[in-house]
């Protein structure tokens, strides 16, 4: 059972690497913000998986909750910051 959780965590890390492509090569700033948001929501699940693997779930839950709150606040703040900016598009012409 622990091995299944280990491979699930490994697969989740692979999916995070896939989302990292959008965070690196997104045409606009908001695409990068979207990729970072997707990585953060996967990290919340990965932290609980790590807690099960280390058999310290009660400690890792608090870290996951803080990470979820931090992810939400970071996305909200960054999207308010980029709201009035010009030149969000056209930074990289071919999509």
């Amino acid at each position, binding site marked *: *059972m622990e091995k*299944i*959780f280990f491979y*699930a965590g490994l*697969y*989740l890390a692979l*999916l995070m690497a*896939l*989302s990292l*492509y*959008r965070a690196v090569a997104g*045409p*606009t700033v*908001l*695409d990068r*913000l*979207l*990729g970072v*948001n*997707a990585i953060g*929501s*996967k990290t*919340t*699940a990965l932290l*609980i*998986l790590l807690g*099960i693997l280390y058999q310290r*779930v*009660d400690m890792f*839950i608090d870290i*996951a*909750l803080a990470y*979820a*709150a931090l*992810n*939400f606040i970071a*996305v*909200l703040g960054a*999207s*308010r910051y*980029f*709201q*009035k*900016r*010009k030149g*969000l*598009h056209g930074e990289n012409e071919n*999509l």
Partner: protein
Amino acid sequence: MNIGIVIILLFGLLFFTGGSVGIIRFPDFYSRLHPAGKLDTMGLLMTMGAMALYNLTDFSMTALITSLKIMLIVVFVFITSPTATHAIVDAGFRAGLAPWTKQKKEDDP
């Protein structure tokens, strides 16, 4: 019991896979927000539910409270993920990002 947990976990990973592939392959910023907002939330619900069930296999009061806290994280994400998605859409819309259409690029300003 364990078979059910593994099945729920695999379905959650399937939803996460759909979200990641959708983020990579959709053509437009607005359409990319659709898998990012929905499928990640559903995958988080299923993986977290599987882990909360696995935590309950040797039952005690501490394990019950821990599983309840895991489901509270899911409730928190269910509230905050649509809010974050709506904030990103609002930022893109106010900055004047045009939605994707099927025409070519030459009639763009």
